[in-house]
């Protein structure tokens, strides 16, 4: 099963090279999808291996797939597939000259994320995370407009500065491991509880590493790049970044947390993650109240969900399965929403919520999946985010973090109300009467309490989905049922959480 | 059980005859006090007879409510006469004279009257109905609380048992709690039966009418039932009030002399109270409609005071 460790790295890179050089455009465009599929398949193979009790390793232990890595790889693959497949319609509009590099960069981006989750070395993990910044920089700036250039600049500066701080932390952790005689960055070694690591260095290193990765994870106050980058990037890229890149960064935080918890106990990072999580929720709430742009709305919602996951991470082992499930649920839902937002942007030509009205009447093909995905995003069952949130909150009260979770609930309510208001503003309502239609048909609001009268159809509603439907249906269906699959998903999550809990 | 049913029927028959007489007496007393000759104490009887023998005229747009409403009002008043402890306090099995049942019974009549007022489709009927229901809504708490206060010493909400307790233990009657409650109850009954100062029963001026406005469109036997129902209600409630103030003479164990005494006592008490009421009304003016709630709020306060006092003081 060890080959599944290099396939998610090698296949996308090969496909990227093909995309760059490939003359056969229609086939080349499938490159990112093939890459995602490769990652997903490798992930599933590794999951099977892990559930069978194996721990595949490669390169002298440099690459290693425990339950957590296998799970994360699957999430990367699944979200990648939804984003790239769902974004198929999109790339057709891309400038032809850059289409090849666009596809290639997405493939490399996927490879970098795969490397980040498969590396057993936190240094390598860092390098992979930094590589994601490099690959996505041009993707964010893909549209070559003023705003996309601005977003890309901010993204690169803030992202690499943040990740640099993480490097400083990792250096300190490495320094702390010198006391063991054999300095190492292997996560497996560092997370052993019996190592004589220097607590002061681990504390500082852990704190700085978490702070640095928090930048990529979009946790406040390091989140500033996120709304800009997510709103300017092409929709599939936004989906990938929001859906998995943030989760991968959180994965890095979880790995670091395991190391520090073993040495200095959970309290220190618990406080830090709680503060970060609550601050993220606060920032998301504050900026969603009067949000005007639907892609930015989704971006702030990502900050919110990452904040909630950070709170879950702060709670510790009791909430970890919920956090991991959250990553999958949020990834798939957010990828769907970004893909849809891309399509809405394309057909409506504006990202402003005020300019997109009555979508449900005019374009049910886009509005219906949008509403379903929004329901999933704000945490309605049967979608898995509901279970994750409930799991985190119940675990929080059980761990004595009632106050933190209570504040989180208040902020979640504000966010819920704001998101609902914005979504309703976009989708619900009667369209403005088009010129040339019968004015008598425009029923005055409030004159018809029965609700049984049909408004004369003004124009044929646009039922087209403006792109492939299947990936979106698959994504939503997966989030809807995944929370009920106790076997094998439940076992996998339990094992993955056990990895972080220190048990092996 | 048989004696209880017998007493109930006796009360029914007695009050059907007594209530027009009571109205006649009250009108006559008032007329004399105002220096008029009056139409005699049997005039209400003659009115009823005359109305029954007339063709009722109904509005084209009215519904069955105009026919059913008066009968319902009459039925509710008749049931009131059956259930209240007037001649005797023998409770009927399965249908004791429960305070809450009695009040609901009475409210059915109130609702029927209000709907009759609305059904005619005129401005007056609606006005009367609206005012009537407003007053009824505000009276109900007072009525319930006042009787609740009286029920506390008896430990039951059955009116016959309350009257019996007062008969056996007259000290209860003049206790402060009881006095407060009686005043509150008296005001509530005045409002409930559309007497001064809440409503002027002899007026036909649109600004002051409550009851009369609702029956404007009724005619013939419909009007007869409405009038008879209202009179019966007044008589029954006055009977209850008098039995609460002066419980003596009420029959508690069935015996023929007891029945006669009971009949005589309740007739005398009701007529006496009626005369007192109409004497009082001569000296009263109707209060403005929007001052009525203040009056009712006052009586409500008295009743509430009575209840809490009976728990905390007594």
């Amino acid at each position, binding site marked *: 099963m060890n080959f599944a460790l290099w396939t998610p790295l090698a296949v996308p890179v090969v496909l990227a090279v093909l995309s760059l050089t490939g003359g056969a455009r229609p086939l080349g465009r499938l490159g990112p999808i093939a890459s995602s599929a490769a990652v997903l398949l490798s992930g599933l193979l590794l999951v099977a291996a892990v559930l069978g009790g194996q721990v595949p390793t490669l390169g002298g232990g440099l690459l290693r797939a425990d339950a957590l890595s296998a799970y994360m790889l699957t999430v990367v693959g699944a979200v990648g597939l939804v984003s790239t497949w769902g974004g198929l319609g999109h790339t057709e509009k891309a400038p032809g000259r850059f289409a090849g590099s666009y596809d290639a960069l997405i493939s490399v981006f996927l490879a970098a994320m795969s490397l980040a989750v498969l590396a057993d070395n936190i240094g390598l993990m860092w390098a992979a995370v930094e590589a994601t910044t490099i690959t996505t920089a041009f993707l964010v700036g893909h549209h070559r407009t003023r705003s996309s*250039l*601005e*977003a890309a600049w901010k993204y*690169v500066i803030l992202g*690499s500065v943040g990740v640099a701080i993480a490097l*400083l932390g990792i*250096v300190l952790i490495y320094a702390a491991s010198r006391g063991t005689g054999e300095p190492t960055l292997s996560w497996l070694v560092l997370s052993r509880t019996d190592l004589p690591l220097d607590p*002061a260095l681990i504390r500082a290193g852990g704190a700085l590493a978490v702070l640095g990765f928090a930048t990529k994870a979009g946790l406040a106050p390091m989140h500033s790049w996120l709304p*800009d980058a997510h709103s300017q990037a092409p929709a599939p890229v936004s989906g990938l970044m929001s859906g998995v890149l943030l989760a991968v960064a959180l994965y890095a935080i979880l790995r670091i947390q395991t190391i520090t918890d073993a040495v200095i106990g959970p309290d220190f990072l618990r406080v830090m993650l709680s503060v970060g999580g609550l601050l993220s929720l606060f920032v998301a709430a504050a900026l969603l109240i009067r*949000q005007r742009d639907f892609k930015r709305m989704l971006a702030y919602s990502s900050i919110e969900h990452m904040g909630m996951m950070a709170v879950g991470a702060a709670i510790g082992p009791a909430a970890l399965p919920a956090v991991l499930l959250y990553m999958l649920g949020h990834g798939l839902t957010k990828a769907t929403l970004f893909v849809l937002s891309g399509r809405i942007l394309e057909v409506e030509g504006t990202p402003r919520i005020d300019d997109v009205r009555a979508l449900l009447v005019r374009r049910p093909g886009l509005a219906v999946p949008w509403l379903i995905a929004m329901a999933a995003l704000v945490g309605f069952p049967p979608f898995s985010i509901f279970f994750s949130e409930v799991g985190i909150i119940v675990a929080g009260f059980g761990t004595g973090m009632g106050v933190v979770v209570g504040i989180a609930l208040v902020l979640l309510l504000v966010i819920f109300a704001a998101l609902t208001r914005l979504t309703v503003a976009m989708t619900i309502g009667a369209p403005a009467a088009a010129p040339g239609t019968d004015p008598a048909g425009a029923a005055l609001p409030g004159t018809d309490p029965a609700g049984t009268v049909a408004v004369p159809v003004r124009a044929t509603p646009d039922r087209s989905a403006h792109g492939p439907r299947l990936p979106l249906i698959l994504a939503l269906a997966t989030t809807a049922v995944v929370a009920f699959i106790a076997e094998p998903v439940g076992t996998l999550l339990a094992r993955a959480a056990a990895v972080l809990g220190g048990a092996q | 059980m048989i004696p209880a049913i017998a007493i109930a029927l006796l009360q029914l028959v007695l009050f059907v005859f007594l209530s027009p007489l009571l109205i006649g007496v009250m009108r006559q007393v008032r007329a004399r006090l105002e220096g008029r000759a009056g139409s005699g104490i049997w005039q209400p009887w003659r009115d009823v007879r005359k109305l029954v023998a007339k063709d009722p005229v109904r509005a084209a747009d009215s519904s069955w409510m105009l026919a059913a409403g008066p009968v319902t009002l009459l039925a509710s008043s008749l049931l009131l006469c059956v259930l209240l402890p007037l001649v005797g306090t023998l409770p009927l099995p399965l249908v004791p004279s429960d305070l809450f049942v009695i009040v609901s019974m009475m409210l059915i009549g109130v609702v029927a009257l209000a709907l009759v007022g609305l059904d005619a489709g005129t401005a007056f009927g609606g006005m009367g109905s609206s005012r009537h229901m407003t007053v009824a809504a505000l009276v109900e708490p007072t009525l319930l609380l006042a009787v609740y206060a009286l029920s506390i010493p008896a430990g039951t909400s059955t009116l016959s048992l309350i009257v019996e307790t007062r008969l056996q233990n007259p000290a209860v009657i003049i206790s402060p709690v009881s006095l407060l409650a009686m005043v509150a109850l008296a005001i509530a009954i005045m409002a409930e039966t559309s007497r001064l100062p809440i409503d002027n029963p002899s007026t036909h001026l649109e600004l002051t009418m409550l009851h009369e406005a609702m029956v404007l469109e009724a005619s013939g036997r419909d009007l007869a039932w409405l009038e008879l129902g209202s009179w019966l209600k007044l008589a029954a409630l006055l009977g209850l009030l008098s039995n609460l103030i002066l419980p003596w003479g009420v029959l508690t164990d069935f015996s023929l002399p007891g029945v006669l005494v009971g009949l005589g006592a309740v007739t005398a008490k009701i007529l006496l109270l009626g005369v007192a009421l109409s004497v009082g009304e001569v000296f009263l003016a109707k209060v403005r409609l929007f001052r009525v709630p203040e009056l009712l709020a006052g009586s409500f306060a008295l009743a509430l005071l009575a209840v809490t006092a009976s728990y905390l003081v007594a």
Partner: protein
Amino acid sequence: MFDTVFPQLIGLCTGALLLTSALMVWRHSLLASIRLLSVQGFALAALVAVIGLEEGEAEVIIVSVLVLLVKGMALPWVLAHETRATTRTDEAPRLNPTAGLLTVALLTILSYVVASRLLSGDTSISAHAAPIGLAMVLIGFLLLVTRRQAGSQLIGFLVLDNGIATVAFLTSGGVPLFLELGISLDVLLVVVILYVFAGRMRNKFGNTDIDQLRKLHD
């Protein structure tokens, strides 16, 4: 003999590092900053070499050469090339030089405090010099926060990165070689990307003033 020279050499190198960083906050001219960055790269390479000699590891010498090539020569050259293309090479920082230098002093003190807590058990010379690295990180950050030109921000980023490298070499003798290569490559790529973006910015706006990137908000 080397045992006595070693601390002095370390002190010299780290002193040069701190001095160049502080000077960069002081100077406004982009080209001057780039020259200082180049000097800093040389100092860092020297530091690595000293540590490598002291520990006798050949691997570290290779790293030293690498650092010299990348940080001392390649990157400054790229930057200078980019800067010459811009019309404005002067900078009007958001913080005046006096305040900037004072802040540098405060940040350096903070670094010493932090480092003294972290390395309380470690009495080696290199550990004593580690605060300098931390101070460089903070100064780099300060440059990023206060400078308006794209080029200056790049320089700030590089100072920050140099600081991290300094800490790495002083506290732990550097990270494993393959990682060092990876890290260097990453940094190089970031600089290249920023360089490209700065070029695009110049094409679009005619200058590289970061302040005009205010279109995306709330």
